[in-house]
């Protein structure tokens, strides 16, 4: 059994802040928003990790929520790669 600690809830929270911070700076710097939405989604997934850790619900069916968020983020990354590659060529 994984013990509930402050760390397990707080670290994903800080990770989400860092991910969203980087995404925002990138959006601000490049002036384009859509390629950085996967980072926003990762921040959301990280918050889900924090909440699930708090209630000790990882390794239950709730983890499907995380899987969904990561899946959408990965598909979005694929779309970004394809679109940017087509623009390059």
């Amino acid at each position, binding site marked *: 059994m994984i013990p509930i600690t402050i760390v397990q809830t707080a670290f994903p929270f800080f990770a989400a802040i860092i991910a969203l911070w980087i995404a*925002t700076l990138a*959006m601000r710097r490049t002036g384009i928003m859509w390629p950085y939405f996967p980072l926003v989604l990762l921040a959301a997934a990280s918050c889900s990790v924090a909440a699930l850790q708090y209630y000790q619900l990882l390794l239950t069916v709730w983890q499907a929520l995380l899987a969904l968020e990561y899946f959408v983020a990965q598909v979005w990354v694929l779309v970004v790669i394809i679109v940017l590659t087509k623009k390059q060529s």
Partner: protein
Amino acid sequence: MILYPLVLGIEFFQHVVVIVLVGVTIVECIVCWKKAHTGDARVDTVIQENKRAHVLLLVASLFLAAWIVVEYLSEYLGDWYHFLVHLPAAIVVAGIFWYLVRFKDLGLKILFAVFSIAALIQIGLDIFEMFSGMDGVPWIEAVRELLQLTSVLMFYFFAVRSMNLLHHEERT
């Protein structure tokens, strides 16, 4: 209750978004202030032209942060919270949005529309909860958190897009 993890996760995400938004807005204002004193003519004119928009963005972001913090007072203010705090706050933020929508950008208009609709539904939900006596019903809390997350995210994207429009005007 089964919806509690969802509510907690959404609350975490709201706080993350607001923390990042306030941080980025403050950094933006410091950068603009510094650039205004270095004598870069182009940047200087851009800032001079859009000074009011920048100040309004900062004010709106800090206001939203204060709103999220004051949410915790809702327990003490009770039902009056919605009339004393929530409704005025939503109206002020929407008013600032209304000023910034003058950029004639379709994305900003869509974000503004979604924010307004989410805020209106949330206020309606609060009034419904107040008069129906269904205080603390889990699905109402979950729906309210979802609506609030929508408002906060729309505000975040609105602020970032406004900053982009202010600084990358050639891209629009």
